């Protein structure tokens, strides 16, 4: 009985010692930092991971995340300086650098998120409102994101928070503007398509006309060449005739006249009225043929 009692007491003491000893140590994980509070008064901040000690029962430990934390912001409409509306959806990444101030001002990550979301919204409106929609979307997105980040970072310093980055995820037009954009895109494409088709017709017409022109020119050149060739032929002919006929022009005249009579006075369309005293009829009435000839028949 007695031994049992002593054993029981020892066991109780051991258990109490274990509990007290266990509550005197605490571990800080890599992802966390710890704030040690003694009866409501913060006494130290532990950022290095590992095993740490505190006064049992009196000190309490508050763990604060050390990682980069997400802040997702719901999409909201922002009016740019040129009165265009943009639906902007931004997110921020931040880190708690001063656990004490963080704990004192916002208390928890949820609290920090809601405070930061408000600040982020107003910073976004402020910065984007000073710039035109094209600047936001195209030209200086990165610069503007940097400016929002700087503003938010300055304001969040009061919460012991370091804003690592602010990024605009979406910067889109509101739904009703999107419809207008779709219509514009459609008409632009239609215009483009019409232009392509018309250009096709134009090119085709050009090619055809060019071909027609080539045809005309080819034929004209050929004709011109042909006339020249014919002229050469005719000239040559004249020369040949002249060379030959100049040997005796009088005989040529006679010879040629004979041919011309034969060709010109055709058998079926000519009727002669002759007098028997012509040269042809020299012997017709006078077998001696002494009368002088008069002239050729007419």
């Amino acid at each position, binding site marked *: 009985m007695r031994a049992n009692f002593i054993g029981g007491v020892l066991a109780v003491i051991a258990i109490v010692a274990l509990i007290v000893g266990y509550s005197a140590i605490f571990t800080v994980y890599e992802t966390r930092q710890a704030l040690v509070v003694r009866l409501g008064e913060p006494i130290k901040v532990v950022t290095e991971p590992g095993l740490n000690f505190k006064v049992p029962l009196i000190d309490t430990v508050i763990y604060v995340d050390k990682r980069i934390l997400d802040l997702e912001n719901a999409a909201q409409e922002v009016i740019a300086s040129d009165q265009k509306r943009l639906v902007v959806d931004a997110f921020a990444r931040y880190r708690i650098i001063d656990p004490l101030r963080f704990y004192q001002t916002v208390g928890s990550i949820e609290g920090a998120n809601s405070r930061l979301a408000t600040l982020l919204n107003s910073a976004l409106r402020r910065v984007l409102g000073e710039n035109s929609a094209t600047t936001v979307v195209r030209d200086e997105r990165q610069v503007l994101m940097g400016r929002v980040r700087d503003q938010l970072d300055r304001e969040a310093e009061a919460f012991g928070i370091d804003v690592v980055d602010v*990024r605009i995820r979406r910067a889109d037009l509101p739904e009703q503007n999107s419809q207008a954009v779709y219509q514009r895109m459609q008409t632009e494409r239609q215009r483009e398509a019409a232009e392509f088709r018309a250009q096709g017709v134009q090119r085709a017409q050009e090619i055809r006309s060019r071909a027609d022109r080539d045809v005309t020119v080819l034929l004209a050149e050929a004709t011109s060449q042909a006339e020249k060739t014919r002229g050469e032929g005719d000239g040559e002919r004249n020369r040949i005739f002249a060379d030959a006929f100049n*040997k005796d022009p009088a005989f040529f005249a006679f010879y040629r006249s004979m041919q011309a009579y034969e060709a010109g006075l055709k058998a079926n369309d000519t009727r002669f009225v002759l007098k028997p005293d012509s040269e042809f009829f020299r012997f017709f009435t006078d077998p001696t043929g002494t009368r002088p000839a008069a002239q050729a028949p007419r």
Partner: protein
Amino acid sequence: MSWSNQGGGGGPWGPGPKGPWGGGGGGGPQPSGSTPPDLEELLRRSQDRLRTVFPGGGLGGKGIVLLVLAGLVVWGLSGFFRVQPDELGVVLRFGKHVREAQPGLNYHLPYPIETALTPKVTRVNRIDIGMRIEDDLRRGTTMRDVPQESLMLTGDENIVDVDFSVFWVIRTDAVRDFLFNIQQPEVTVKAVAESAMREIIGRSNIQPILTGARQNIETAVHDLMQRTLNEYGAGVQITQVQLQKVDPPSQVIDAFRDVQAARADQERAQNEGQTYANRVVPEARGRAAQITQNAEAYREQTVAEATGQTSRFLQIYEQYAKAPDVTRQRMYLETMERLLSGTDKIILDAPTGSGGVVPYLPLNELPRRPQQQPPAGQPAAPTQAQPLMGGTR
């Protein structure tokens, strides 16, 4: 990593206790996916386990000692853990990163002194943006479009529908960063991917995006993402950014297709014109050749004829020159003979100057010869006499 995986005590510790800790003999729960485990959760679960094992000793003396010893042995053995080939073990001592463990069987000091995490470092993770791939047993893999993610504004204020995938791995040289630096790596990668893609798309005009610039966009997004994630110290390596679909929005895609059709129409019209030209011009060349050849033929013909005729004339002349009067007379008479033999003739034997033919008019009513046909054997005179003139003189 649970004990039951060891195939009933096939492990090197042979007949060791078979999983008195339930399934959690290893240093800690496996991180689900690549998300680091919530350490608080881990702590709580382990405490629960301790409580179930020591429900408060009711046995006495030796029994207690044995129980404590057995407990110590089991506790000591609980430090074994296995690292799969695609994993890397990270051992924490009191929450502090102390060493890394390679794939295989490893040991860490039992909880709560040391714990181990096993992120899958070789696995390539994939994030789809603008679409979700769903495995359906009946229909196979289907792709669902997510327009609120995929529709984005371009620099020239058009809207384009972009689906893309990002592949990433945990950087082996920065596993620590991955585990301890970022709250939700997966969510962060996705958010960064979206913002980077929209930033790049927002900088360019729609036409290059739709046509040639895919490679450039992929590279630019890849670089921008990697830079941003490095700034965060996320321990994430982007291996690839892959554009899946880059289209105009469905509302206007028909108009875009029509532009393609119009381009084809343009080609077609040009080809038709070219066809016409290709047909017409050679034909004209042929005709031109015909014209010039005709002219050549005419020239040759004319010259040949002229040569022939002069040669005939010269032959006659040669003979004529030998006896001019007789030949002239003969030629005259022969011509007249031929001429008069084929024609109607009226011979009036009236004295000269006594009124001529007038008394016999009209001549047309005088009787004609009944038949014009020249008798056979007579030379067909007019065909022999070629017309020499024309435009000659």
